[in-house]
């Protein structure tokens, strides 16, 4: 028995795609990471080995609009929270016929009909107030309860994660 809104295996498989390479940053292969949260759907973060994020997606099998809960969850994971802007959240409904035979048949059997809602979070490179370029990074170190998203210079490394930096700076015994 799965949680309401969770994607059955046939739909998870139908939504998968090969991640490709890091665009306009390093051209290295992008890795796909699955992330757990309190939401019932499936999170995927696509990022290169340096941690530069191509796109983060959340997919849920539902009739409701999951954008608000996706925004709240992303803000919990992001430093600063203001980096998560409504402008960068885009939704897509997957009905079945565009997902291949097995997914189409699976979705066609469900009454009343419900599709898969996917919310994408894509932050394009932007300029900071000092004019320098910023990209969205992610850090997956085990010390975090979840991923940590942050903005940094394209030449940065994951080691600039603000949550990891706080841990390092904390006085011993504090």
């Amino acid at each position, binding site marked *: 028995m799965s949680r309401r809104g969770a994607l059955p295996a046939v739909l998870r498989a139908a939504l998968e*795609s090969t991640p*490709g390479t890091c665009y306009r940053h390093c051209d290295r292969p992008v890795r796909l990471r699955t992330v757990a949260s309190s939401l019932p759907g499936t999170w995927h973060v696509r990022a290169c080995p340096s941690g530069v994020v191509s*796109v983060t997606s959340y997919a849920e099998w539902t009739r409701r609009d999951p954008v608000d809960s996706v925004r709240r969850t992303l803000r919990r994971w992001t430093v600063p929270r203001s980096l998560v802007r*409504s*402008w960068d959240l*885009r*939704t897509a409904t997957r009905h079945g016929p*565009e997902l291949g*035979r097995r997914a189409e048949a699976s979705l*066609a059997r469900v009454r009343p009909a419900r599709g898969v809602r996917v919310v994408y979070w894509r932050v394009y490179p932007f300029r900071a107030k000092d004019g320098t370029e910023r990209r969205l990074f992610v850090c997956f170190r085990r010390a975090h309860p979840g991923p940590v998203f942050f903005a940094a210079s394209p030449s940065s490394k994951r080691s600039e994660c603000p949550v990891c930096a706080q841990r390092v700076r904390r006085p011993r015994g504090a």
Partner: protein
Amino acid sequence: MPLSVRKGRLLAKRLGVPFRTLDIDRPAEERAADRLVRGHGDDAPDYLIPQVFLEWSDGAVQHLLTGFSEKVARTSDAWDALLASEWLRSVVREGSR
């Protein structure tokens, strides 16, 4: 020719209906696209494109496909699946009766 224009024409030909595009870089067409997406599609402040709709003879509008943000090749796969779908076969079958 853009992927979704090429595949969209193919879909329209299979259905025997005219194919219409709305270019969001043209203000009048953008307004029409905004209305369509707001009423029937995947709306957002900066919504995904392409979005594909089918208008039925009774005026009903059906959202068929929204582009995949992952990469263009994934949207191409989705178009191929749609063109090979049981849904399309059944609509064509019904239309030819």
